[in-house]
């Protein structure tokens, strides 16, 4: 009898456990998602905030960055002032990065519970364009501003001719140099034009500082360096010339091989925690362990917010290239704000968000409040903006960000974002980059494995 009971108990427990499955408690996962630059160091707390009169149309909005929501709240108040007949009341909620994207995916898949407006990070965007797109096209709402906007930034959020995301910034990538360190060891960053120059400077720095200071840190948790290389060669792994996925590109090989050599020669270190845009990375910069790194212009806000001690020590410059004449910048990162089909008044939501992000007024506020290189290029040459020395970003850096931006203006590529982009980023950040940069695995072999895996994914 006892034994029968045991069998029954064992069976029942197994069944119960299997059937009840796995409850999951999602947390934040900044390292996993490669293009998380915007979110990485923003707080993980959930914040709810409502602005606007009760009489206004009520909208819900989600974001993964509290700074974004603060900005939108400000823009909502401006909107209400300018549009007395179309008042809105918006409730803003800030969620941790992956929580928010997962929640939105589920809400759109099930057709219930989605907000009216939501920020979607560029690397995650393709996940939301699958199947019948559950987002409201912004074409009509964007039209009034379209001529002033960088077209490629609209295209990355589009499918079949419909624009689904309102862009925030270009994300032009530049090299950040710590001039205090470089001056100390007699290195002139303005002379660095190619990666060979850069490597040479790294060697000099390594010798002069007795190995204490590295020229840069390479990432195992992000693909920025590879994006830079691809843009310089005009290659694209997600959709090359024939539209096929190919990660075994010369640009990628050259960059990884060069980085392996840097690590071997003590010119570079591996970024603590895998990327520069995390607390560990900020500390590394503050400690003076590295003298330079490539990052998009939005990284300026990290200096202002998290590394105020570095004021006056950092200069911005165009990226070194493999061969002269290549593109010296690339757009990295970004957030497309979407309007969902579940919205109670999608037209109003779309008009508001394009006003907040794409209009001249909105763009100016994005620059002033968030320090992003906005997509509205009118602003780049507006002397009242570019020469405003009271601006916290312009006064922080040794070089004027707009000088660099205008210098590389025609060279800012954007790589295509396809439905394979999340998978490529994911595989490189968990596997390939760790193997190549941590374990010193052969570059060709690692890329071959990545290619095999990703072809299966398609």
């Amino acid at each position, binding site marked *: 009898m006892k034994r029968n009971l*045991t069998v029954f108990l064992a069976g029942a427990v197994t069944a119960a456990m299997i059937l009840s499955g796995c409850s999951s408690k999602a947390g934040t996962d900044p390292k996993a998602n490669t293009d998380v630059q915007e979110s990485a160091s923003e707080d993980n707390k959930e914040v709810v905030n409502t602005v606007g009169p009760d009489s206004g149309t009520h909208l819900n909005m989600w974001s993964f960055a509290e700074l974004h929501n603060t900005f939108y709240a400000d823009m909502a108040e401006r909107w209400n002032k300018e549009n007395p007949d179309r008042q809105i009341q918006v409730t803003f909620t800030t969620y941790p990065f992956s929580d928010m994207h997962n929640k939105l995916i589920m809400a*759109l898949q099930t057709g219930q519970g989605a907000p009216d407006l939501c920020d979607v990070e560029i690397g995650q965007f393709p996940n939301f364009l699958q199947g019948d797109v559950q987002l409201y096209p912004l074409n009509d709402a964007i039209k009034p501003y379209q001529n002033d906007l960088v077209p490629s930034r609209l295209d990355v959020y589009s499918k079949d001719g419909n624009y689904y995301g309102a862009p925030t910034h270009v994300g032009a990538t530049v090299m950040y140099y710590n001039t205090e360190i470089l001056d100390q060891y007699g290195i002139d960053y303005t002379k660095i034009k190619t990666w060979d120059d850069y490597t040479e400077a790294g060697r000099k720095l390594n010798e002069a500082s007795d190995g204490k200071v590295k020229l840069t840190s390479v990432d195992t948790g992000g693909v920025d360096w590879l994006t830079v290389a691809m843009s310089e060669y005009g290659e694209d792994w997600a959709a090359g010339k024939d539209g096929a996925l190919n990660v075994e590109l010369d640009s990628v090989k050259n960059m990884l091989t060069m980085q392996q050599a840097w690590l071997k020669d003590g010119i570079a270190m591996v970024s603590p925690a895998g990327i520069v845009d995390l607390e560990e990375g900020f500390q590394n910069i503050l400690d003076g362990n590295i003298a330079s790194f490539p990052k998009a212009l939005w990284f300026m806000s990290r200096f202002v917010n998290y590394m105020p001690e570095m004021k006056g020590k950092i200069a911005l410059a165009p990226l070194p290239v493999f061969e002269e004449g290549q593109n010296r910048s690339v757009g990295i990162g970004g957030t497309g704000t979407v309007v969902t089909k579940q919205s109670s008044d999608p037209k109003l939501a779309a008009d508001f968000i394009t006003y907040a992000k794409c209009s001249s007024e909105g763009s100016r506020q994005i620059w002033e409040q968030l320090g992003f290189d906005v997509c509205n290029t009118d602003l780049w040459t507006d002397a009242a903006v570019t020469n405003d020395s009271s601006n916290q970003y312009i006064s922080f850096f040794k070089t004027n960000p707009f000088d660099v931006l205008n210098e590389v203006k025609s060279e800012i590529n954007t790589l295509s974002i396809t439905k394979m982009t999340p998978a490529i980023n994911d595989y490189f950040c968990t596997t390939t980059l*760790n193997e190549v940069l941590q374990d010193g695995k052969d570059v060709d072999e690692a890329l071959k494995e990545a290619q095999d*895996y990703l072809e*299966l994914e398609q």
Partner: protein
Amino acid sequence: MKIKRIFYSQKAAPFLFVLPFLLSFTVFWIYPLFSTVKMSFQSILPGQIEWIGLTNYEKLLKDTTFHTAIRNSLTYMFFSIALLIPFPMFFAVLMDSNLVKAKGLWKGALYLPALTSVVISGTLFRLMFSELPTGQMNVFLSFLGKAPIPWLKEKGFAMCALLTLCCWRWTGVNMLYFLSGLKSIDTTLYESASIDGASAWNKFRYITIPLLRPTTIYVLTISVYAGLSMFLESFMLWAGNSSPKNIGLTIVGYLYKRGIEKNQMGYASAVGLTLLGMALIINVIQLILNGTFKKEEN
């Protein structure tokens, strides 16, 4: 009157009383189970659901990341069982003997970790296993004159960290199972063995272990599934579902990645059913080998 008749009816009343359970069982368990089977043969996107036959399963066969996840889960299951049956049994025997003083305190101390949230304890373990020289485990190592270890970046060390967390958390629970098993053993057996001059080891070997068998089988059965379905520990230890070279990826972690993070519900269903199949097969084999299905001997 009618209602009263139903309640007093010997035929109807039992069904009425189990109805709430049956309903919730059907809605929350039976339906999802069949729905999962159906979904594993589909590709599911918003507004576009297609039947794709065995494509999901064919992909699983070739998916190297999934194979890594299976390997990790099986390794974890194996070692967690190897650690979480002998040691708790040993502790239970100790607690049951006269060798230990302040038993309540010990039992409480061993059981306490089970009451904590994995989210919190996982976060603490992540900090303890930090690769920095100031991480607790590396501080211990430095006492021993060893260099710091990047615990969560290398396969072996990572499994070590996972198992440490697992043992810390579950030793007390398993010990309680064994303790209750020990209580049901008739003390006269030990007395007569003592009279016959049996040593303590022989008593343990020939009385305790055989009579604890039902408990051991029960613990083994739940450990198989608990080991295979581990997710949260790894999720917290790496502060997310991604670990370098997937050293912390488990089957359920992969299911979460596909289903929730990438919105591939069909593929995730296939992963889930594979897990179900594996757990059932391992447990059925284990139960057959243990003779659980044999008829009770007279």
